[in-house]
């Protein structure tokens, strides 16, 4: 007998046509699924309910989320659970490195929950993860970090491991920060990007924003100017999609052609790479964003 549908939880409305994706054939995503389960690793793919998960996992890639799956900040756009954070697992760097090795990754993206409860915000754990992955796989490492409350010594710790890419997402325009990013601070995030570039110009810096939260084009262009002034190399722009009905609702679905126009505008600011589209996420095809430009320095 078929069970009754949970109508209250089921999606009720049809999304715009452009928010449609074909699903990959085969069961490659189950390989990734099993490996991550075996090694007890968290991913932002699952925790953020990413619409690209099936595609990425079928390509045997995932974005690892370290330092547990409980966040200390209540951001209105994010579905990662918040509450009492978990203890750091000391063997996580080795388990992560093992997963990267078995997935044969050449470009490994590591992000984390925000850990304002830790004295260094988890920076040392980031450093250990970068080094472990590099030693086991030789892969390029991209980190997507929280703001470490602007703590420069925490940033120095991560920078000292020399990740190939240092990503910190601005997420939205400053007017919407309180509602979208809670305790984050726009200027602090900008300063973080500038500081990383000042400390090591060989590290590619990167940021991302979600569109469709209620920002205006002028506000967005102001942010892009700020980001470039901070020396940021790579920009990603994607559609905000509310994880559940409890999160900030989508203000607007931005059509693909509008993403194209915004990207063309953004490129005039001199970014090394601009990737924009409804399903673009900061870690989506992250390896491809870096590959064509690995040897260039737009800030030189």
């Amino acid at each position: 007998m078929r069970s009754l549908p949970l109508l209250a939880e089921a999606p009720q409305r049809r999304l715009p046509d452009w928010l449609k994706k074909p699903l990959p054939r085969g069961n490659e995503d189950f390989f990734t699924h099993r490996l991550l389960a075996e090694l007890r690793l968290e991913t932002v793919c699952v925790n953020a309910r990413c619409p690209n998960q099936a595609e990425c996992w079928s390509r045997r890639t995932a974005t690892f989320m370290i330092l547990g799956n409980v966040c200390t900040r209540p951001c209105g756009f994010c579905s990662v659970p918040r509450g009492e954070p978990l203890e750091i697992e000391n063997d996580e760097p080795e388990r992560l490195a093992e997963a990267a090795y078995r997935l044969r990754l050449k470009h490994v993206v590591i992000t984390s929950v925000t850990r304002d409860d830790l004295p260094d915000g988890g920076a040392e754990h980031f450093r250990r993860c970068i080094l472990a992955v590099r030693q086991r796989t030789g892969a390029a490492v991209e980190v997507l970090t929280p703001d470490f409350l602007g703590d420069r010594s925490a940033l120095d710790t991560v920078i000292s491991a020399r990740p190939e890419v240092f990503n910190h997402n601005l997420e939205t325009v400053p007017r919407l920060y309180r509602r979208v990013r809670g305790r984050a601070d726009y200027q602090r995030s900008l300063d973080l990007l500038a500081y990383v570039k000042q400390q090591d110009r060989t590290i590619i810096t990167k940021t991302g924003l979600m569109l469709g939260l209620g920002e205006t084009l002028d506000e967005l262009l102001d942010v892009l100017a700020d980001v470039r002034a901070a020396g940021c190399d790579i920009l990603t722009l994607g559609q905000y999609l509310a994880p559940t009905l409890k999160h900030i609702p989508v203000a607007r679905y931005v059509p693909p052609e509008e993403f194209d126009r915004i990207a063309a505008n953004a490129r005039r600011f001199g970014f090394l790479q601009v990737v924009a589209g409804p399903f673009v996420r900061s870690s989506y095809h992250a390896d491809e964003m870096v590959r064509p430009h690995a040897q260039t320095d737009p800030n030189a």
Partner: protein
Amino acid sequence: MPKPIQMPDLGGGPVRLSIWYAEPGERVLEGERLVEVLTDRATFEIVAPATGTLTEKYAFPNDPLQPGQLLGLILEDTLLS
């Protein structure tokens, strides 16, 4: 053995079947879109895992779906000959 059409893991959250693009008895080509499913974050098209004849449908429009659920069966061409 007929080829199963399985519901992939879309990363949690409610999923509902929207429409089938083929009826039982129709021939389908591997890679051709076969089923549309809706989530609150994207619409996904599940493609035919093999070329052959769609023989069974086990899920229908508006049904809530779970990862791994069997949606239907395709009898592959090679098994028909």
